[in-house]
């Protein structure tokens, strides 16, 4: 009898931990920051993680005009043909990320920080909210 109870307890404990695990796994519907731009024009093909540009961090330090006027960034995710050569020559991100104003290009993985395969997108944009079956956890956009 005793070992039957023990057996049942073990069963309950096992199923409990399984359910907890399932909860932790499927409950993780998480959201990156509104306005974060994922740029994956060339990264995946080059075997690098895609870039995540945090708009919020930059707008605290610079007004829109600095990048979208003076530096020539288009108002479109993936609309700027940015590559590392242009950056080290001081164009686009390289206008500041040169070791003078902001940290330099050798800190690859601070920008190249998205999950591999994340498509180019503006995260949490209205467009993403219009589409019902978007897998937000994966950041997939249709």
């Amino acid at each position, binding site marked *: *009898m*005793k070992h039957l*109870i023990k057996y049942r307890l073990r069963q*309950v404990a096992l*199923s*409990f931990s399984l*359910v907890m695990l399932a*909860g932790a*796994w*499927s*409950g*993780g*519907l*998480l*959201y*990156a*920051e*509104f*306005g*974060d731009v*994922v740029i994956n024009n060339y990264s995946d093909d080059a075997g690098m*993680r895609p870039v*995540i540009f*945090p*708009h*919020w*961090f930059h*707008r*605290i*330090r*610079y*007004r*829109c*005009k*600095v990048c*979208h*006027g*003076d*530096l020539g960034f288009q*108002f479109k995710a993936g609309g700027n043909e940015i590559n590392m050569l242009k950056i080290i020559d001081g164009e686009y991100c390289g*206008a500041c990320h040169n070791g003078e*104003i902001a940290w330099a290009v050798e800190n*690859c*993985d*601070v*920008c*190249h*920080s*998205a*999950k591999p395969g994340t498509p180019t997108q*503006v*995260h949490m*944009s*209205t*467009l993403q*909210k*219009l589409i019902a079956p978007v897998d*937000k956890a*994966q*950041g997939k956009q249709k």
Partner: protein
Amino acid sequence: MKSSSLRRSLLPGLIVLLFTLATQWAVSADNKNPNKFNRLMVPMSERNPPPVEDGIHDPENFGTALLQTPRESFSALPRAPSGNNVNWTKALENGDINPRYDRDDAEAKPIVMDLNIVREVKGSMPDVVYPHKQHTEWLDCANCHPAIFIPQKGANQISMAQILLGEACGICHGKVAFPVSECRRCHSKPKTGAQKVSK
């Protein structure tokens, strides 16, 4: 005798356990529940998550852990109901943030134009008041004119459908600026009695 009393003492514990299991099951099934209260509403506790938990940053990546978390940064800024949950306009007005207008010159001041454009709206929604002032604090005239908006009265046809699809105002609003869900921040001028009658 002994085992039956043990069973009896275990019973309440088992009931509690089963209840916990049931709630856990409900939580885990929550995402798939077609009758969930609101699949888009993110509870306050889950907003502005740190990069390692935000779902698009790779937690395996070393650099991810180096990034500042938005929650920490926003703690000092005025709140808003949507977007980043930050009222950026107010943050700038209050001086909570002082973003540069020029990359190199910390003293450069924006060329602010204080001109409200009222756009009459079909239907019952209040008319739209477009304030140049708040926009020119952040942007240069050339950012919008003439590519996005022709600087001429009546020359720009704008619809909410366009905005939702990321055109016109939607080039920024809904992507980085506050989203269209905050209707009354734009639709802010109630229609006059005469207007109501003529419709």
